[in-house]
């Protein structure tokens, strides 16, 4: 669990509830010890700068290029994307997911919302998806599989072993996405 900044703690709690062994990652030696990585929500600009400050940018790029299993939520999805608009020019996009995303695309916090989201891969009942100053995915590459959409925009997608969602599965207490990610990648 990348834990430089943001909602790492709730992801760790979700992983603990499904019996997955999870540790926080702050440094390169800790990254080397894990076989898959969740990139949490938070501020993508801050997380990007702290990756640099803690010497994690190079090692993370290498691991992602090597096909490490990864799930990016909200800010984490932006880090996995190939292109981010309305962000900072210096923020990292590792390109593990061939998507273009617009940062904070719904507007200020008063536009943040919850939605019941049908996700076929998770079964018949919809997932309560919490969108907090979320990005919108504006383009998906040919290799990207879209697993859920909201108002036509992809909100959950995967490309090989890289998964990304624009909402926060860690906020709603619904553990199905964490479980699916852990089971498929085991």
């Amino acid at each position, binding site marked *: 669990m990348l834990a430089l900044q943001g909602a790492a703690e709730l992801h760790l709690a979700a992983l603990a509830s499904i019996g997955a062994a999870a540790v926080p990652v702050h440094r390169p030696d800790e990254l080397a010890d894990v076989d898959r990585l969740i990139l949490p929500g*938070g501020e993508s600009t801050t997380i990007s700068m702290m990756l640099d400050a803690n010497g994690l940018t190079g090692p993370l790029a290498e691991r992602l290029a090597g096909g490490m299993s990864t799930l990016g939520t909200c800010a984490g999805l932006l880090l996995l994307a190939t292109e981010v608009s309305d962000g900072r020019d210096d923020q990292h996009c590792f390109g593990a997911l061939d998507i273009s995303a617009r940062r904070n695309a719904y507007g200020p916090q008063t536009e943040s919302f919850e939605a019941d989201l049908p996700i076929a891969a998770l079964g018949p009942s919809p997932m309560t998806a919490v969108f907090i*100053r979320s990005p919108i995915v504006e383009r998906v590459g040919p290799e990207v599989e879209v697993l859920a959409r909201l108002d036509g925009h992809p909100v959950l997608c995967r490309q090989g072993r890289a998964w990304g969602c624009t909402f926060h599965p860690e906020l709603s207490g619904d553990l199905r996405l964490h479980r699916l990610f852990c089971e498929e990648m085991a």
Partner: protein
Amino acid sequence: MRVKRGLAEMLKRGVIMDVVTAEHARIAEDAGAVAVMALERVPADIRRDGGVARMSPPEIIESIVEAVTIPVMAKARIGHFAEAQVLEALGVDYIDESEVLTPADEAHHIDKWQFTVPFVCGATNLGEALRRISEGAAMIRSKGEAGTGNIIEAVRHLRSITGDIRRITVADSAELYDWAKRLQAPVALVREIAEAGRLPVPLFCAGGVATPADASLVMQLGAEAVFVGSGIFKSDNPAPRAKAVVEATTNFDDPAILLKVSRGLGEAMPGLELGNLETRLAERGW
């Protein structure tokens, strides 16, 4: 409430910086701030100049919103729900109902349930924190003593809140009623704390952080993120200090990194001894 509290979750292990101008806001974002707090004057200047401190003018807040990509918070006076309505209409991401501004109501805080925008409120102890949560606050910050560069009050307030939380977790069910009475807080919230061992909303720290080590100290004492007010823009060299405080907050439990980022920052803001203060901002709020 989940959506309101959600944004606070996203700010954890981050630094929210007080800014007065768009230029300050850019420096804060360049340094890695997770959010900025727009206000008319930093607390050290409010303390020095006196007068009534109010919400920032809308055009200043708008220029700050334009200048950065990160969330923008703004302060409203305690009880001044009309200022809060203006800030919500303007589209800020969080409102701080703040004791740093001159209170507008000597008995009532804002009924925060009436708003879509989330609120953060200050607290000096657990009772105050729970009263603010019962009014709809989605984040609590320990108050400290703003504008002093002196961390002692922040430590006192954090220890008071986290200490009482720990004590409540070992209380039996009958004792919880007594806790509610003593804290002047709803028993339902006291029960929630007894079960969860933590506040029902994130607990951040404010008031007196001036150095990277100050940020580390309050994080180690249980704060989940840090507000820095005068500590950055009243120091010798704001940009490197801002970055150092951000790195210290992320790596608060790593002394080697704290040492590294504490070097070469120049003078911190001049501090104030609490005994010499004419006004204790933390005493505002009820």
